[in-house]
């Protein structure tokens, strides 16, 4: 039986790259890792993702797959046996996809603006970020009441899509100059955070809150100076 060749091209602070790490690690897939330097992208990255020249890229048996959620979907298809990420039921699948997409449209978007913007736009980004977390707290209560994850007892597609933002919470609060509401206001969210942080394989690739905060603060200094 030939061995699969699996390689992840990534940049360690990327929440999108972390999604791919989580999917592979939850399934116990072994893979090579290549850290990319974004001002100095490797020839391999440029050839693997000519459209966007961005990480993450998964290279499986020589074929590149790009865009984090497309990659996670692909991983779930190719390695279905261990830890299925997408539910079998089409409606539950659609709900999982909806919340994964919410991570991009609302959570990432607000976080990104929080890092890059100034003044009024910065304030609004903070409000939007808190709104997004509130919606996630509500969703957890509706979709999987009494359970730790969107996927119930185990992480699913939605959990993998959203969990990478957890290590950025400290950074966003620092940059945004606010403190997030606590577990009294968002009980489901905090239970979910604890549950994610308790999953052993999640710890393998998650950078520390402080390391992320240091990176994002430097990034913000650079981004706002250039504005």
């Amino acid at each position, binding site marked *: 039986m030939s061995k699969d060749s699996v390689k992840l091209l990534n940049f360690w602070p990327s929440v999108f790259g972390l999604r791919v790490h989580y999917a592979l690690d939850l399934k116990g897939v072994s893979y090579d890792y290549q850290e990319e330097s974004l001002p100095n992208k490797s020839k391999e990255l440029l050839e693997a993702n000519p459209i966007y020249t961005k990480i993450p890229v998964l290279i499986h048996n020589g074929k590149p797959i790009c865009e984090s959620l*497309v990659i996670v979907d692909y991983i779930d298809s190719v390695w279905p046996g261990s830890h299925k990420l997408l539910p079998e039921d089409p409606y539950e*699948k659609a709900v999982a996809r*909806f919340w994964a997409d919410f991570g991009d449209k609302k959570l990432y978007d607000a976080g990104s603006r929080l890092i890059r913007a100034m003044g009024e736009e910065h304030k609004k980004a903070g409000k939007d970020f808190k709104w997004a977390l509130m919606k996630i707290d509500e969703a957890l209560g509706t979709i999987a009441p009494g359970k730790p994850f969107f996927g119930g007892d185990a992480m699913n597609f939605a959990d993998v899509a959203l969990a990478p933002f957890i290590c950025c919470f400290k950074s966003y609060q620092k940059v945004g100059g606010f403190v997030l509401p606590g577990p009294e206001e968002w009980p489901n969210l905090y239970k979910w955070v604890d549950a994610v942080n308790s999953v052993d394989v999640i710890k393998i690739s998650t950078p520390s809150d402080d390391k992320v905060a240091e990176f994002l603060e430097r990034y913000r200094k650079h981004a706002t100076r250039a504005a």
Partner: protein
Amino acid sequence: RMGEEGLKLLTFWSSPFACRVRLALDLKGLHYDLQEEDLFNAKSALLLESNPVHKKIPVLIHNGKAICESMNIVEYVDEVWPDRGTGFLLPRDDAFARATARFWADFVDKKFLSLTAASFKAAISSGEEKERANDEMIQDMVALERFLESQGGVFFSGSNTSMGFVDIAASFLPWWLPTYTEIGRLRVPGPDTCPLLHRWIAAVKDSPEAKAAFPDQQELLDFTKVRFEEVKKRFAQ
């Protein structure tokens, strides 16, 4: 056979997102109620209940459950009714081909339906900024042409006769390109640079399902002209 009872689509006639879902439903030969939402005056209670997070159309309601986000709805429809009508929209047995289709559907969304897209920036800006953004938009269309070429058929699905996932994602373009040129005053690549894309446009416009799903071209132009002024004001620096 899974019942279509109570299949309802909450829609708006000039939404490219809603129209492409209609196209998917029609290609599958499904029967459904169409509920036109009055987006500019009052969204219906059903819409607000069905999509409380985004409050947007399209929403598909099936057996009392709401599915939101247009390409998410198309995937749902493809999974629940895989063999109906035109057959499956996403490649069934090839995970890499599926990933490729999802990538290019997402490309269409990022490049032609997003407020951060070059196409949008080109439309609302002027002078050198407009020209640069327009050039970028043309490169995006050339990228689509290259992908279409690699698929080896009339449609992005690779088939000469049936549309697939990427075709449905991009299906609004034949009706929206004239709004880019006439209202956005943008340059678009012609049949000399993008012959396959133009052949695809003609094939989509010829499809009876697409003709039924998408609005009358002149009505769309008239409506877009009015909306565009408001949009420009909102986004102009």
